[in-house]
């Protein structure tokens, strides 16, 4: 049951943001809908789990409190950080996530080392 993952993603998405006014704060409602979507995905494996059921009830209460509609965008469009340089280049993940590519830019290829553990 991965309800805790849904919880942490919701808190991560909503923590640190300025105090949300009483009017419907679109990003808060988006985060709530994402949260609701996430809990639905875990419904099968979390049935009977207290954390799951309290999350579902909590989402309903917050939806009403913040006057959020059940339908609407469920997650912020991911911020696409295109690698510096040729912006036409398609990247399936940010440059920072490819050590060799990003390392290569600055200097000679990295020096690799090996460690092994085996036997008795």
């Amino acid at each position, binding site marked *: 049951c991965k309800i805790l993952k849904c919880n942490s993603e919701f808190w991560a998405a909503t923590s640190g943001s300025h105090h949300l006014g009483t009017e419907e704060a679109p990003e808060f409602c988006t985060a709530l809908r994402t949260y609701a979507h996430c809990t639905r995905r875990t419904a099968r494996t979390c049935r009977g789990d207290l954390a799951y059921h309290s999350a579902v009830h909590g989402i309903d209460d917050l939806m009403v409190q913040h006057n959020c509609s059940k339908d609407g965008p469920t997650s912020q469009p991911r911020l696409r950080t295109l690698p510096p340089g040729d912006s036409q280049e398609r990247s399936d993940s*940010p440059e920072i*996530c490819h*050590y060799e590519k990003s390392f290569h830019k600055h200097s000679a290829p*990295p*020096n690799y080392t*090996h*460690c*092994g*553990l*085996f036997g008795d």
Partner: protein
Amino acid sequence: PHLRTFTDSFQTCKVQGAWPLIDNNYLNVQVTNTPVLPGSLATATTKLTIIFKSFQECVDQKVYQAEMDELPAAFADGSKNGGDKHGANSLKITEKVSGQHIEIQAKYIGTTIVVRQVGRYLTFAVRMPEEVVNAVEDRDNQGLYLCLRGCPLNQQIDFHTFRSGQATEGRARRKGSSLVPFPEFFTYETAMAKCREKLPVEDLYFQSCVFDLLTTGDVNFTLAAYYAFEDVKMLHSNKDKLHLYERTRELGPGNAAPSG
């Protein structure tokens, strides 16, 4: 187990219990070693935990855990990649042989990890950029980090000392002493012959194989040494350093190789 460090030093260590194999800003690897036979000084790895720390918009924190007879093809949370972040595919786990051989590619830190189960025990190998190896909080009082600093002296086992001990213990065993019976009994010569089948070059991998057969009588350790060398061939960047040899010693009268 036998340890080859990032600086190509080669040691045979007791390190019974849980020890940190890697401990830097990006990765923690902890191994748990248990005696191969009750009361034996020789230990082998029965549990391994790898923690990939979360990294920018690449990966969430991921934990991989393997135990004796359980080599999962996924992280502890059931996923096979770095999670939900944009660069999640820069961390991937691949099953090569079910229950025997998995590889983990951590592209965001240029690191490749191989975990195997050979016989009843686990083996581990890693290729990592020097810059990542040395990325530790405080280099000066860096604690135990076996892959970088090797085993503490009091945890190291010396083949030579062992061999002379083995000669006497071997004789004792032949007289049907109360020593724990080995699955198979090897003499130094038969152990060497067995290891030579898989490891024709008599380097430290070969010597480890002989040591393991003498201490356990378990032929699976021949394969453990063989695959350890296969992993070195795949992961080590300097092909001239694949074989390591023991520093030769002045063989004086007290150091002559034990008879038998």
